[in-house]
């Protein structure tokens, strides 16, 4: 599997990352390097090995249903580029 500059342009757009046109071929080459490495990993024989979701904890830790957080609108809004009262304010988005 390999990706071309069109795929890179699309991935960047979906991630809302601005990439100059001339940077696309270089990024495509880097992506393909990563994919080749994955393909190399896939050559390992994993028959009989259970698929796993991660290398750390094998199950989620649960917490109790208690209200322990919130009540901090000022802190939550502190980094907002714009606000109106206790609301975040953003350019109007209407479907």
């Amino acid at each position, binding site marked *: 599997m390999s990706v071309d500059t069109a795929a890179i342009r*699309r991935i960047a*757009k*979906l991630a*809302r990352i601005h990439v100059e046109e001339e940077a696309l071929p270089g990024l495509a080459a880097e992506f393909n390097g990563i994919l080749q490495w994955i393909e190399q990993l896939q050559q390992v024989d994993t028959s009989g090995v259970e698929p796993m*979701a*991660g290398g*750390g*904890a*094998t*199950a*989620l*830790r*649960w*917490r*109790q*249903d*208690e*209200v*322990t*957080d*919130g*009540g*901090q*609108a000022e*802190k*939550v*809004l502190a980094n907002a580029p*714009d606000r*109106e*009262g*206790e*609301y*975040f*304010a*953003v*350019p*109007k*988005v*209407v*479907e």
Partner: protein
Amino acid sequence: MSYTLEGKTGPWEIVVGLEVHAQVISNSKLFSGAATAFGAEPNSQVSFIDAGFPGMLPTINEVCIAQAVRTGLGLKAEINLWSRFDRKNYFYADLPQGYQISQFAHPIVGKGEIEVTLADGSTKMIGITRLHLEQDAGKSIHDQHPSKSFIDLNRSGVALMEIVSEPDMRSPEEAGAYLTKLRQILRYLGTCDGNMDEGSMRADVNVSVRKAGEEFRTRCEVKNVNSIRFVMQAVEAEALRQIEVWESGGTVDQETRLFDTARGITRSMRSKEDAHDYRYFPDPDLPPLVLEQSWVDAIKASLPELPDERRARYLALGLTPYDVHVLTLEKETAVFFETVAKGRDAKLAANWVTGDFFAALNRLKRDISDPPVTAEHLGELLDLVSDNTVSGSLAKQVFEAMIETGKAPGVIVEERGLKQVTDTGAIEKVIAEVMAANEGKVAEYRSGKDKLFGFFVGQTMKASGGKANPAMVNELLKKMLA
């Protein structure tokens, strides 16, 4: 006869599937300790996790897991002991993380089913494809400012159950019946309040049309419909639109649409073509969700009685199908009825609850959660009817007085002297007076004019102030007029 819509080329069948988002009842959010209560001050119930601050780690709320399992069991569905959370990636102002934590490949609940009852009394099974847990987004407010949208993140991170049906519905009525039944089950289980006005339950409606015997054609999704009535309207409006597209030689494109409730039509959401490329992948912050079978079994053992079981039990008590339907529709009504009926005649209790009591609710515009007469008091009134302290018609007077005063029926009967007269001597005395005042009619009756009997009953009841026991009046009159 199955439901079809008539087009220029003949009848069309419609195919409907629903995705329902149901807010989980819990104190705190799915992955944070912020509160979930509706209607709080903006951004007052937001943790740094809900606001998508960097470096924050989600920890799952055990009650939200239990609620999803409880709902799955109530839908007679498979519970998956191993499930996993994925990231659904998209950008929107009310989604500060830039992704929604959801379950894509491995939901916590698998296939189940719901039986719905239709207006003609028939029943139909609607398949449930899956139920998964996910985070709700924040709320955008568009109408407060000419050029800005306001964002409140209080809802951000509240647990949602997305409940996906099979495309098993074939009419607007079936879609409405499914949603009604699903909401009833959620309310019985106490896992979602089902309040569509407040947005705690919302439906995405998938609609396609086809000719009889065909495979499915392309479907469209009508998003975020917020009442059962609107779901039924949206199904029909979207189906009619698609029929027109097909019949005019076009093809229906798979797309997301909105239902314009004012105009009764659906319209395309002018979203970018790549809006649906969510690039799901397993959330690296969250190891798999693993359940013990014994934990699931304990939840199963603690499930409350569900609507279907309750209905069967009421029918076995000899109640009419209509009474059973209205008494089980809302859990609160059933609980009220059972308090009234406890240790008493179930049919008498059902008659009073569905009759005078419901009429009073309607007249006073009150709700079952705020009844004008308590279930205990109504039960006591039934006792007074059963032991002949008051007659049926006097009981109605007592009931009205209970609404006015809030007093117990026994107190009202004492205070107002409404106790039924069952003393033979007293009733005979009243009858004698009535006969003395109407000697001519007595003579007519005795000469064969039987129809006058009703006149004497009426006069006697009137003279006793409505308090004479009607059965005894009848019996004694027959004797004394003979």
